[in-house]
Structure formats: C-alpha cells, structure tokens
C-alpha cells in the first residue's frame, strides 16, 4: 500500500532476503532529491526505536521531504539470522546489513545518504560512515565516549569530601580508579613502532575503539567534509558528564569548527521523556535544514 499521505511501505531485502524494514519515500520537491536517512537499531530494540523515537524522527523528516529507512539488523526484531553468512563476525554482519540497507536506498533513487542511530546504532553509524565514503552524513546519539580529566573532576569533585569514596579508592574497590590506573600504566609502557594506527579496514562497532583509532577516524571524516551531528545526554553519565567532554577528548582536532553538537544534560539515554523527544526532533530537523537546505513539503 502506498499513498501520498502515508509514504511508508514495508520492505524485505538484503543479500539473503533476511532483513525487514519500513521505507518512507515522501513526495520529492523540485530540484535534487534531499538526503535520505538510514536509522540503525539501538541495541536489540526493533526498528521503531527506543520509545518509538525512530518513527517520530522519520515522520518529522518526511515533512522536510527526506526519505528514510528504519530496519532491523540480522536477528533483531523481524529480521532473520542469515544461515548463509555464518562465517562472519557479528560486527561484520551488521556492517553488511547496513551496506544492504544503503544499497536498497540507492536503488530507490534516494539521494545522498545519512546514517543515524542511538547508542550501538550510533557506533554502527560511525563505523558505516567511516567505511563508506558515499555516506555523506551521520546523526550520532549517545555514541561511545572517551573519559577526560574534566570527566574525572566532574565526577570526583562533589565526592572528594566523602570518606566512603576515599575508602574505596584506598582499598582498590573503585572501578573508575582502576580504569584510570590501567590507562596511566599503558601510557607509561613503550609504544610499538609505527605511531598512531591508520583507520583499520574492519571497524568493529561492538568493541570500544582505542582513542587513537577513534581520532584517526574523526580526522578522516573531517578531511572529507562529512556532515555530522553529535548528541550526548546526561543519561550517558557513566561515560559522559559535562558539555564539552567530546571536544576535550580530542584536543588535537578542531572539532568545534567542523561538527554540529548538542548536549542535553537532563535527558536520559533513551529520550523517554516527551519533552526531550521534542527537543531532539527539533534539533535534528534544524540541523538537517541548515546542513542540506530547508525543503518543506506541502
């Protein structure tokens, strides 16, 4: 069923015909087709997104003429685990699925492509845009974040006078302190020859990347003028706890000049409050318009 007033249709696709999604192709205005957006699962929540937020965003973007595809990765939601791709790792399979989804959008004649996702969906989006130069933009909601000195000060500042905190630190029970000590130790150890690694061919989204790999990936994306909106929430407090942490994590990159950014301190990780869903929707639509030109479909 297709109808101008409801531009969504169900699709089954993928190299093993194992993927299920909903493709939205709103009527295009005059001129070049506006960029389309691919939404990638967050964790194991199916394609509607946490609290149905992908549906909300897809429909808001349809109002700007943007085609979207929200789909389920292999084994999630309605998509099957392909029995003929057992030889590949989970991370590689997910990137293959994303390739299949992007290929479907291209076959549909959808213009430049943007990847978007929350949490692991953001990590997968970043891996996809780093790997595929034809992807021109990304919306990254609470992606992996690196802790900084500012993070530690923000975390420990209010706790510094609490005896229980000192006791845990002295007795080695503080997981954060253990992480910091490990990081300090690894920095003191001699580095292998070759300096910072290049962006590897296999960008595994399921593992935390090293800061060097992450920085190299960012540098490559900036060099090719990839358009990115990074959004962090207060819900990611275990890894991200103050506005500028993202910029402080990569002081050698002039990220402020090249990426769009939002920190929504009061929002939880899945945007469960409607007020923050509205705020996120408005931020993404504003970014989309400002970056790619406002096209309001009547």
């Amino acid at each position, binding site marked *: 069923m297709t109808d101008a007033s409801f531009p969504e249709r169900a699709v089954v696709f993928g190299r093993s015909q194992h993927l299920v999604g909903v493709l939205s192709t709103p009527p295009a205005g005059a001129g070049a087709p506006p960029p389309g957006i691919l939404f990638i699962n967050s964790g194991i929540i199916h394609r509607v997104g946490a609290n149905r937020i992908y549906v909300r965003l897809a429909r808001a973007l349809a109002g700007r003429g943007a085609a979207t595809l929200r789909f389920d990765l292999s084994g999630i*939601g309605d998509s099957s685990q392909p029995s003929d791709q057992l030889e590949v790792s989970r991370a590689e399979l997910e990137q293959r699925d994303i390739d299949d989804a992007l290929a479907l959008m291209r076959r549909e004649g959808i213009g430049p492509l943007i990847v978007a996702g929350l949490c692991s969906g953001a990590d997968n989006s970043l891996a996809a845009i780093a790997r595929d130069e034809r992807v021109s933009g990304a919306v990254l909601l609470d992606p992996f974040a690196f802790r900084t000195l500012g993070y530690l000060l923000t975390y420990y500042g209010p706790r510094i006078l609490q005896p229980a905190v000192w006791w845990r630190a002295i007795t080695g029970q503080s997981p954060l302190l253990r992480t910091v000590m490990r990081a300090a130790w690894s920095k003191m150890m001699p580095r292998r020859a070759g300096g910072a690694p290049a962006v590897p061919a296999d960008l595994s989204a399921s593992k935390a990347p090293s800061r060097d790999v992450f920085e190299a990936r960012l540098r490559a994306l900036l060099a090719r003028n990839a358009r990115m909106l990074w959004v962090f929430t207060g819900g990611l407090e275990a890894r991200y706890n103050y506005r500028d942490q993202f910029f402080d994590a990569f002081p050698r990159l002039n990220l402020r000049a090249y990426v769009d950014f939002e920190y929504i301190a009061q929002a939880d990780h899945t945007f469960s409050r409607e007020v923050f869903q509205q705020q996120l929707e408005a931020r993404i639509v504003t970014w989309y318009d400002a970056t790619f030109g406002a096209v309001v479909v009547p």
Partner: protein
Amino acid sequence: MKPHYFGSTSRPLFGIHTPSASGLGETGVLICPPMGQEALRSYRSLRLLADQLAAAGQDVLRFDYHGTGDSAGEVRDGVPSVWLDDVRLASQHLREFTSVRRVVMVGLRLGGTLALLAEVPAIARVILWDPILDARDYIAELTRDALDATSDEWEVRGFPVGPALRGEIASMDLGAVRRVPPDVRVVVTQEAAALATFQASLEARRARVEIDRIDAPRAWTDDEAFGLGAVPAGVLRRIVEWAT
C-alpha cells in the same frame, strides 16, 4: 515473513504475516500485542511465538495498533476504542489475506483484553496471556509507573498516557462482553486477583475456560535498563499447543 500495510490508506496498520510452514492454512492466529513500553519489550517474544505457531502449521498475523509501532498515527491518537476497531479489521484481514477457515486470537496483557472486548464473530478460541482482567488494577499499575501522576498528562515508561487513554482504559469491562467466545484459555505467569471471578463469569455464559499457571519471567517488562523482556519458552510452548 510478509510485512505489509493494510486497512485504509488514510490510517494504515502495519502487519506481519508469517505463513504456515505446512502451507495448509487451516487455522489463522491473530496476535494482539500490549500497549506502550510493554509492546516494545515483548516484541521479540511475540515474533518467536509467531515463528513457532507457523512451524506448527498456523498462518499468523501480528500487527501494530493505530499510533503504535510502525502503524500510522501519533502515540497520543491511540486509545482502546480505536484499537478495538483495529482488532476487528486485523481479524478480517487475516481471513481475507490467508483464506484460513478457523481463527484463533492470542492477546498479551491489554491485547488479551482487547481480543475479548472486540467481540469478533466466529472465533474458535481466544488465548489470553496474562490479560488485564480488572481495569482498576491496570490503572493502579500505570499510576505507580507514571513519572508524575499528579499531572494531567502522565508519562509511563517512555509513553504518554493522557486522560483520554486513561479514561477509556478505566471504562473497560470484560463483564460487559456480549459475544463470549466458546473456548477461552488463559496462561498466567503472575497471579491475578480477578482471575476466579473472570472464569466464573465466562463459565456462567457457557464458555469453556482453562487456566494454566506457569512460573516464567514477564516478557513485557523484565529487563535491564533498556533491553527487551525475557522470552518465556514454557508460555510460548503452551500457547502453541492450545492454538494447534
């Protein structure tokens, strides 16, 4: 698996048909999901239930109510009076889409309540999985989970529950069902105070009622911070047995 939209072009519903593995298509099973966060958490269990029913020879239709999942509509548009029409439409669609001769309905939580209240004609059996039997109990649950139950617009675990939705839920009364299905099976993983009254009420109206209690995790809510509910294998097995 055949995902598709059905119903009117102005208000389409999203459905997924899982065809019978045997291809015989004698019995069709319509699965009615719960609402709100419970629908997201139980999505995997209901998908696996559909797979198992299809493997056992049934044609299965899952669907999203208006304003939920991939169906058209805003979350705030979804209320039981609309969803009851959706259940009727989906059962009709299942018959037309598959040419099955016998229809069984399965409903989880509020989906079970809707399956009964929809009063769809010629249903062979209704299987209720931890149904909402007493609207007051459900409203009490929603009140407990609401971020601010003193406000007019509640938010319950990521979904708005406004006064219209609450009002319609509060007025749901299984005792008012006129077309009682001849055969009702109930599987519960948590004891419900209203179960005995519900059973007596149906049996007084000549329905056969069978209740099974299975110790299993709650598919619609048990989880970590933002995962899915557990899949209760024993419950799915019992439902497949009953639907076959």
